[in-house]
């Protein structure tokens, strides 16, 4: 195998532009009246904060911009929000739910 073509772990930074890949669907489920993430062989239930973050992941906004948008919504220091958003998105990237 060509070493150079090996896929690498996606690392989320402040300038990353996170988005949901085509095969991940964030969908409101009328039966259970909540939002669900549909992924290959998995259904994930985002909590309200994760949902707020995911709904801002449009491939246009940077992680920094997402954190800034949430700072207006949540009463917490912006650098802490940035850190928490980055950690959450890294976790989701490792699960294959986020691309950037």
């Amino acid at each position, binding site marked *: 195998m060509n070493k150079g073509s090996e896929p690498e772990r996606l690392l989320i930074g402040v300038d990353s532009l996170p988005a949901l890949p085509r*095969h991940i669907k964030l969908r409101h*489920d009328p039966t259970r009246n909540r939002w669900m993430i549909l992924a290959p062989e998995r259904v994930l*239930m985002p909590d309200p904060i994760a949902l707020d973050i995911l709904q801002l992941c449009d491939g246009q906004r940077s992680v920094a911009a997402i954190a800034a948008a949430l700072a207006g919504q949540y009463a917490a220091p912006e650098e802490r929000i940035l850190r928490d958003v980055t950690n959450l998105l890294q976790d989701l990237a490792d699960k294959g739910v986020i691309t950037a």
Partner: protein
Amino acid sequence: MSVAAELDTQPATALGAPLGLLAELTHRCPLQCPYCSNPLNLERAHDELSTEVWCEVLAQAAELGVLQLHLSGGEPTVRRDLTQIIARAASLGLYSNLITAGVLLTRERLEELAACGLDHVQISVQDSDAANADRIAHYAGGHRKKLEVARWTKALDLPLTLNAPIHRQNIANLPAIIALAVELGAQRLEVAHVQYYGWALKNRQALMPTREQVLASAELIAEARTKLRGVLVIDFVVPDYYARRPKPCMGGWGRGIITVTPSGRVLPCHAAQTIDGLEFDNVRDRSLREIWSKSAAFQAFRGTTWMREPCRSCEFRGLDWGGCRCQAFAFTGSATNADPACDKSGFHAAFTDVARSEAGRPAAAFTYRRPRSDRRVG
């Protein structure tokens, strides 16, 4: 407050409606894997549901709360109407997952399925070694074709899962199987130790790994997960013959998954027909909603009220639901016993002994999966 949100990754099974529909479109399959999850009595092509009935089943499933559709078989691509079924699923907002051996697909057909709205492709491989893989599937040239289909899947930008059933005759190649998944660009790899029901139970002696092999495979997976974090998600299904606690089979009977067989029988689990005395309703006679909520087969082992000791008073009863009903029936003669995989079961020592003794002997020849009329020992 903190935005350190954690995703709840528990399956949403406690919400009263099934999340997943396993649609066994057909039992026809060109492969003859000796651990096939289909029943020993394979259903015939002329009994299969029509396109119209399948489309109606999908509509009923979506209405009932199903979010994910697993198109399985047999080999689902045998059905010429697969495109129509996928298109219907997409129009209903169901997440569609094609579980295929791949060997019958052409690139054009795969493109067509993608264009109809297929969300995800899962391709099985029998080994990383082509000759051994083809021997296990009893299908010449199958492995090479699967790799080709996997590459088309990536080229069409469809997400790919590789599924590798593991047993004593391929477990030594686990590192190479993981490498193959990375090389093919799969996002997910399912390493599933064979579960012993139906065909696999018939071939148990030829398939059962040793305890040491199982432990080594678990270590290897743990290492690979760390090394491949963010590159490949690895799901690992352990064999329960060497376990202390049973697996929460299907996430609990009648809790999260609904299975429809090629002829329309509705099952709480794809192996449920191995349990004597259960009667299954058919989608041709009753609605999916009615069957899910009221049918005797779904009610039989739902929740915990059917349990006897040691399950009834067990602290884990609401977590593992007593384990697998089919395994309890097959090994102990009663489906209301604890799964013998549990060390609280009086059958556990005998259960573990079977695995040890079978794994310690040279592997028997496979009994390949075949329809009853042309079955012979291979």
